[in-house]
């Protein structure tokens, strides 16, 4: 497969405002074959088990122009894994050198407004807010991050390692597991994004 240019940052592309895509879906791949538990909800094995290290800054992609075919791309050259400007000029990754395809991947989806700005409150006073943020990467303009803002520390979970105590970490890991299990789905309708959402006209 030739690398799909439509997923690369390019001239005229702009940072996507989360509010403007609230009704759209984020997608993420999994190697789990059985995505659903027997109760019809998403298995947490499919969404957030084994991914504990990356949960503080959880990667996903905006579904629409980025579809399941693009979700099978696995970047193997680290130089493409950095964040960048939305209009960055990037040379397309080369097959076999910069990326390979993982055809056995499955996908789950979550509607952005179902998780964005979700406030987590605990009975012991702990509070955090889930935020969905457009974070273009060199290999994928459609890359979004799911991050957690810790109210009492006034910063994001991923920003501050010394804040990552076991208790905070476990609260947030539990919340992600629970939130995705309750909100994520295994199918998503095909749709197109309006041009003005992601490029200057």
């Amino acid at each position, binding site marked *: 497969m030739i690398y799909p240019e439509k997923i690369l940052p390019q001239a005229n592309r702009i940072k996507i405002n989360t509010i403007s895509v609230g009704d759209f879906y984020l997608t993420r791949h999994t190697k789990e074959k059985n995505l659903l538990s027997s109760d019809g909800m998403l298995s947490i094995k499919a969404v957030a*088990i084994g991914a504990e290290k990356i949960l503080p800054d959880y990667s996903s992609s905006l579904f629409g122009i980025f579809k399941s075919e693009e979700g099978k791309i696995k970047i193997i050259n680290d130089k493409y894994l950095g964040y960048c400007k939305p209009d960055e000029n990037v040379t397309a990754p080369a097959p076999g050198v910069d990326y390979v395809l993982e055809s056995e991947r499955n996908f789950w989806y979550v509607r952005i407004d179902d998780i964005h700005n979700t406030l987590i409150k605990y009975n012991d006073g702990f509070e955090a807010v889930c935020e969905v943020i457009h974070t273009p990467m060199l290999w994928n303009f459609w890359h979004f991050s799911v991050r957690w803002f810790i109210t009492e520390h006034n910063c994001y979970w991923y920003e501050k390692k010394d804040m990552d105590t076991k208790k905070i970490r476990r609260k947030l890991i539990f919340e992600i597991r629970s*939130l995705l299990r309750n909100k994520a789905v295994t199918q998503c309708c095909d749709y197109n994004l309006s041009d003005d959402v992601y490029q200057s006209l």
Partner: protein
Amino acid sequence: MILNPTQNRVTKQTYLDNRLDSAGIIYHDFSNKNVNTEFLNSGLLKDKIRRNPVDVSLFNILDDNLISLVEKYNENISGETKRYIGNRFVKYLLRFLSISPDYIDFELTSEDSLFFSLHRDDFVIDIEIFNDDFDELFCAVYKDGIKDESYIGNIDGLMIHINQCFLSK
């Protein structure tokens, strides 16, 4: 994995301890709210399975989870850890059954934590118990998809919290 509500609304779950060559069986009868336990040796267990094939799918839930974790992460889980997890599984399951869930979903995580989802009417109650914090449970309650305040604390406080959520809706 579900602790299956059978048509007559009786939930049965087994915990097999291969070391002891026996099984503890938990029954939850929704009609009279009783929770019963029963221990069988392997001969009686096989006989029970043979006589009641419906129950077969309910056997080995914990072992299945452990096996799938070992396969997924290629990690060894010692017999001692298995027994420890198993004991906690049974201990907490008995408490959770007391709120008469319609059904229960259960997964083990790669951190050996136990993740339960209890369903009752329009409620979904997610509970996670980590292996090293004996009396600290995490809980999130959803009603029609809308989440309540989360809870952290011991099992007694958790049961009060869940019942308060039921009453407040």
